């Protein structure tokens, strides 16, 4: 029996002001006074793609040291200063950008802004925290050294994007981290932290004037232009290949993928709908979930989704199945991918997929921090605030024809590059 439910209104509850500060910085602002706090998120283009191959992890290490002492404050003094006012601050490095987030009670805004300014403009990179944080990253690498998911992921990326930064692990290796010197950190921060690559969102109990003052205090003194090295388009390798990594575990961890459409491709949005129906994360009605998990009990997790980066795009999916049935699991998943590639979606699948993607969009905006993060994400995708509404309009406009064309272009003949970790039977 097919039931119909009213589609949730696609209106966005988020009202974004695009503000230019007196210092000349553009940022997106969402005033929201229900809770007396402010969330700020920022991103700077560059990221791990700027890491030299022999010093992979440089961006991650640099980001990890921004809150480990700045200005007059050494590491302990800086952390104590954060604690005194309950200011939360963290920094990260993604593949195409690095960034950070800060959250504070509105009453502590001035101190929070000052601490953010110090971290962004005057990190000390002292010897003690440098060695400590590097050792911490080393420990994490050793901890994950034989983790099946980490092994599969690292191998798959390295073999899919050889000779490209996307094939390098963003958190480096024991060898590459060991090669990094303090001068590298200073250089990375000086070259990368600049106003022309900066994206900012501020959300919370704050008006335009105060938000602009916060943004200027933290970022206005940064150099005008970043010195980024050009990054080539990432060519995809390994289609049709299956690599096996032997590990003495009862399950086989399978990761697979192939090249896909980039964000600026006219069929991109239609391909996102196709991937959602195929194996969207959290989609308990997806084809892969139904065929691999529900019908056959082959796995607890199974997924497939697109990653669209600045210099390449790919489909990436996987599942984890006991060794004896690993081949069956892989074959079932591959067959579904081929089917979507060849035949697209059914009318019903398309409509349901669209309704879900449209209706679930507001759920990404239910806390100040999540709103700030989404707004920076949209800026990183080089889109305007109108995207908050346009996104759902574009999804709504996907047709049977466009989704079939997009699926065919994105999944091609359905061939995959695959890595299997474990003791799989049948491979």
């Amino acid at each position, binding site marked *: *029996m097919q039931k119909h*439910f*009213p589609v*949730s*209104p696609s209106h966005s*509850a988020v009202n974004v002001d695009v503000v230019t500060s007196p210092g000349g910085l553009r940022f997106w602002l969402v005033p929201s006074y*229900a*809770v007396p*706090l402010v969330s700020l998120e920022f991103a700077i283009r560059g990221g791990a793609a700027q890491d030299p191959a022999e010093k992979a992890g440089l961006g991650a290490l640099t980001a990890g040291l921004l809150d480990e002492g700045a200005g007059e404050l050494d*590491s*302990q003094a800086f*952390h104590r200063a954060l*604690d*005194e*006012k*309950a200011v939360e601050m963290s920094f990260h490095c993604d593949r195409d950008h690095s960034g950070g987030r800060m*959250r504070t*009670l509105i009453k502590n805004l001035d101190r929070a802004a000052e601490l953010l300014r110090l971290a962004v403009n005057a990190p000390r990179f002292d010897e003690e925290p440098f060695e*400590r944080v590097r*050792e*911490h990253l*080393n*420990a*994490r690498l*050793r*901890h994950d*050294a*034989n*983790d099946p998911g980490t092994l599969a992921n690292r191998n798959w990326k390295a073999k899919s994007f050889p000779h490209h930064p996307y094939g390098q692990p963003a958190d480096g290796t024991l060898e590459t981290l060991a090669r990094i010197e303090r001068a590298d950190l200073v250089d990375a921060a000086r070259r990368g932290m600049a106003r022309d690559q900066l994206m900012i969102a501020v959300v919370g109990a704050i008006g335009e004037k105060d938000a602009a003052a916060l943004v200027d205090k933290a970022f206005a003194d940064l150099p005008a232009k970043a010195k980024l090295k050009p990054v080539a388009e990432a060519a995809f390798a390994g289609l049709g290949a299956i690599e096996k990594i032997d590990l*003495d*575990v*009862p*399950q086989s*961890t399978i990761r697979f993928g192939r090249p896909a459409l980039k964000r600026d491709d006219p069929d991109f949005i239609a391909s996102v709908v196709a991937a959602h129906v195929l194996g969207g994360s*959290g989609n*308990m*009605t997806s084809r892969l979930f139904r065929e691999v*998990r*529900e*019908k*056959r*009990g082959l796995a*607890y997790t199974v997924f497939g989704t697109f990653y669209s980066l600045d210099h390449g795009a790919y489909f990436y999916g996987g599942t*984890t*199945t*006991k060794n004896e049935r690993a081949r069956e699991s892989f074959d079932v998943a591959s067959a579904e991918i081929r089917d979507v590639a060849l035949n697209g979606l059914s009318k019903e699948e398309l409509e*349901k997929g669209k*309704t*879900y*993607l*449209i*209706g*679930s*969009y*507001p*759920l990404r*905006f*239910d*806390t100040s921090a999540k709103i700030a993060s989404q707004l920076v994400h949209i800026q990183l995708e080089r889109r305007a605030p109108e995207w908050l509404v346009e996104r759902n309009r574009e999804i709504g406009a996907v047709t049977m024809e466009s989704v079939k064309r997009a699926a065919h272009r994105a999944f091609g003949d359905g061939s995959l590059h695959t890595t299997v970790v*474990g003791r799989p039977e049948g491979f």
Partner: protein
Amino acid sequence: MTSSASTAPHVVNFTLANGLDVVVIPDHRAPVVTHMVWYRNGAADDPPGKSGIAHFLEHLMFKGTKRHPKGAFSEFISEVGGMENAFTGNDFTAYFQQIAKQHLKACMAFEADRMTGLILTDDIVAPERDVVLEERRMHCDSDPGAQLGEAVQAALFTHHPYGIPVIGWGREIEGLNREDALAYYRRFYTPENAILVVAGDVEPDEARALAEETYGKIKPRGAKPERIRPAEPPTVANRLVTVADDKVEQPGWQRHYLAPSARTAREGEAEALEMLAHLLGGGQTSFLYRTLVIKEKLVVSAWSYYHGAALDESRFIAHMTPAPGVTLEALDKAFDRALARFVEDGFDAGDLERAKTRLVADAIYARDSQSDLARWYGSSLAIGQTMRDVEEWPARMERVSAEDVIQAARGWLVHKPAVTGHLTPLVDEAA
């Protein structure tokens, strides 16, 4: 109807005629609601020999009812762009959805329906049992760290079911069947045993009317199901549990102490333990971090955690990662030394002040997330705490004194029997 304003403004609670407890947390910032149902039963209520049944049933709750065939509820949530999930703990099982507000009633109707209408057949139960076994293989059987965690728990709780993993032991999961699931379902899935939490863009009166129209129709059973669990006997034994595996390249160290939970503690004791965990090992300004990471450079990370949110006697935990070349045996001593110094020398008034600032701020930060608030209320009520317990928590933390913290450390940690866990690479002695 009671209402309070200390942690979240205008939180309202009431009980329906059939015994279902309801909490409403209004938050009108976005046209979204979080809808959760918490059952006051978890893995620690699994019958002997049937470990994993609470968690297995949680999976089976998605398999359809008399009124709604398998997948209909999930399809509905998916079609309206909602999110859903469920989780099982030692003391509770919870189901939640996040949806646009106009779908709240339909969502309530589905959830109320599966409180009593579940239908299970063998051809549905069997593949789902395989899914759970794969879940176990993935999270436990392929990861030496997780295997150590299970062994440490089993050593700490020798008799109480907190010693059994929530997902269950593999051999017992293999034996679970339809009858086990239904028997457990009939015993615990009742209005008297459930707590409904609705957070988001809804007024309490409206939520109440909707709850009465849906959940209110379920017949009461007359009494809450009883949770009968054996008590953990006192012990004087220290235990060392070791997992050596050739997949381990980074050794790890942990220690677990028995400690009262928020339910079993004397007044103020759980708060003192919480503060102790914060001052001893809560972040980079904590005592363990300053002493063992920064000063002595014996470890690269150190943290401690107090698990107060439990029905029965619970645990206090410390974890450390050794620096290269430092043995786990050296960490046994280093931790004891650090703990002794913490108790003898105490800490600065400023440390306690900063910890309190942080905890009070956390209560405000929590108000930014309707689903976090819903979780906080739901999990607290599910272990038998009251609305007042939840709302007065920041005020009670403010009252913790330095003396209370030291007393808690002396009372539960210093020279107390504990389980120490060592995760090490496999060294071939013969080689």
